[in-house]
């Protein structure tokens, strides 16, 4: 069962979108040097379709995108919620920040508009560093995945 600790409106994580970021707990990645230690434990409120409905009721079209930050403990759960959002609220884009090196084939990637992959590796740095191992992909209109990581490097 997915749980989330808090949410925030963010601008940097997903370029050009006004994003509701949902911080999911019980993260199995446990990257050394992680900035969000508090998300390692199994804490917070249940993240289900009811929670999604509440968010949408609260923010309406003030946001353009909903991002799952984490959730690698239950990737299928994340996938189901992504599908739910696309089917119920087609006006929103869906993003997933995963800490895994690759997305398992059990996941239907087309249910997402943006996917970030890659654990945090201290000496390679975060997305903002051109040396980063992390990658952000955007699904283009013809269904291909475009690497837009370089958007983070611009001044």
């Amino acid at each position: 069962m997915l749980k989330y600790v808090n949410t925030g409106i963010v601008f940097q994580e997903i370029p050009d979108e006004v994003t509701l970021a949902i911080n999911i707990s019980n993260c199995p990645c446990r990257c050394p040097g992680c900035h969000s230690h508090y998300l390692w434990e199994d804490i917070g409120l249940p993240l289900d379709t009811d929670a999604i409905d509440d968010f949408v009721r609260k923010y309406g079209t003030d946001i353009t995108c909903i991002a799952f930050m984490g959730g690698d403990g239950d990737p299928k759960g994340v996938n189901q919620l992504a599908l739910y959002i696309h089917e119920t609220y087609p006006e929103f884009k869906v993003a997933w920040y995963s800490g895994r090196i690759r997305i398992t084939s059990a996941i239907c990637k087309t249910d997402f508009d943006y996917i970030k992959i890659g654990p945090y590796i201290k000496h390679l740095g975060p997305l903002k560093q051109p040396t980063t191992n992390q990658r952000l992909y955007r699904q283009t209109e013809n269904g291909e995945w475009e690497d837009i990581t370089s958007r983070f490097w611009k001044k």
Partner: protein
Amino acid sequence: MEIKNFTITKRDGSKDQFSLDKIMNAILKAFDSVEQPTDLGAISKILSRLDIHNDITVEDIQNQVEEALMREGYYKVAKSFMLYRQAHSEDRETLAKLQFLSEYCDSVNAATGSKYDANANVEHKNIATLIGELPKSNFIRLNRRLLTDRIKKMYGKELADEYIDKLTHHFIYKNDETSLANYCASITMYPWLIGGTISIGGNSTAPTNLKSFCGGFVNMVFMVSSMLSGACATPEFLMYMNYFLGKEYGLDYYKRTSEQADMSLKKRTLDKVITDYFEQIVYTLNQPTGARNYQAVFWNVAYYDRYYFESIFGEFYFPDGSKPDWDGLSWLQKRFMKWFNQERTKTLLTFPVETMALLVDENGECKDKEWGDFTAEMYAEGHSFFTYMSDNADSLSSCCRLRNEITDNGFSYTLGAGGVSTGSKSVLTINLNRCIQYAVNHKIDYLEYLGGVIDLCHKVQMAYNENLKELQEHGMLPLFDAGYININRQYLTIGINGLVEAAEFMGLKITPNDDYLHFVQGILGLIEKYNKQYRTKEVMFNCEMIPAENVGVKHAKWDREDGYFVPRDCYNSYFYVVEDDSLTIIDKFKLHGAPYIEHLTGGSALHMNLEEHLSKQQYAHLLKVAAQEGCNYFTFNIPNTVCNDCGHIDKRYLKECPHCHSKNVDYMTRIIGYLKRVSNFSQPRQEEAARRFYAHAKSEV
């Protein structure tokens, strides 16, 4: 009179042993000074009339001596005694001024040194700013006297006394009490366009070409500003400039700006000619001004989208019978904004404060796509300006804080360019935190108590208006007589401060929630009720959440000293708590959205503090969010970094200079509406700026 061991209270508040000898000596000196002989018996009779009690003040004893002298029939002696007292009190005043003078010289900056009405628009302290500071206390006394005399005439002595009582006990605050002039105005320059500055006491005739327009404009703004205590907005500036450009280079000049337009060796292009005029005007108007105590003039301009422009200037005619050309103006507005944004990376330029006026449709989309797009583009390029969004062209800003409804868009050759003439004559602010706490502590219904305070404020403002009318009748207000400002379109403004703090005292959470909304609407609705009640054909009222650059600090200090609940050192000038990092950007738009600002007819600009710049698409969406939430007046505020070592200016909020890598950096930010260096703000305001939460665009993941 029985002699006991009394103590008396001296002027500085300290205690001293009572001495009969001192009083006797003073009385004898008074007799001597008018060469009237006296004896011990007479002196004893005078002394026997005195009623001395413990801790009596020196003033009180002297008052009694005066009266005793008169009652005993020594009128000449009494007069001499009064004159002696007067001379001493003048000495004391001079001494206090001397002390202020030396303290001012030692203060860290001009705003901290200022005793009354600190203003961050004074960059440096020097002899000119000091000259401006010294008479401020006299102006306050004079203004209070003018007002109370008028209130007595109109409403009786009791109300005049209540005004002074509420003022000295900080339930209310009179803004700009150190100036005699009315507050701020959005002027029409039409009278200048047809008659030059002669009607307002100048000697220049009407501008006839681009050069005389640009030169004359600067002089005209200086003249107008010296007759206002606050800002001067010139919403027609670029429209007139476009008119003269068209006359000189043809209506399609903007299509040929790369052509050479200058016969000098420099061979300047038309674009360079135009931006050189921008440079001349903007740099001159940012200079400290002699007639304004070395403050720059608070110059404001407006940009319009096509629809806003058409609804305001649709019926406008230039003296030659032509109508303004939108295509040229649209180009010129964009050119000015781009140029100004660029120029700000070279020099810290505060003025003009710019407001973009956009019309939106019922879905929150900008009616003029091109200009909505351009607005987002300019924000993304790091330009800092205000946006005013409305579904009809009902308002204009007269300064960075007040937007004023415009009632009549009709153009008239005698009255000038219709709706652009508006503004605020005077601001009187209610300290809501103190009023509400006082009522609750005394078990009075706070709305009922506030009703009394609001009513008082309206009467005081009515009295101010009568004084202003009298000044006008004596020919002291040429801006009104010459038609730059229409007195009937100027508002009397009720300011509010301490709203959030009062809500916190009531135990409310400062988030978008029904209880807080109900609280806000209850108070602002009450003010609006009185605003409507007092409205007549010639007076209009509006309500503004004042920026409280220094009032917010003063109120917090005074209220704390008097034992009230004060949650922070500087009262907020927003509907949210400025240091609260749990609120999202969208929460802040909601808290400045339609339900909250509905009754705030004079406006309150939301300063959306961000740590990093957003992309054009993101700004475009936020414009839509603002429209959807009904937040009609806002700006995005990302501190610009100024390197103290190499002078480099960067649009980003950085800890280190990207040019020379010095960590000795300062920031340019908007605290009161004006974009200024943080180090120029008064000490308490600098502390508020440091605590202020700049929303991280990035989450913590």
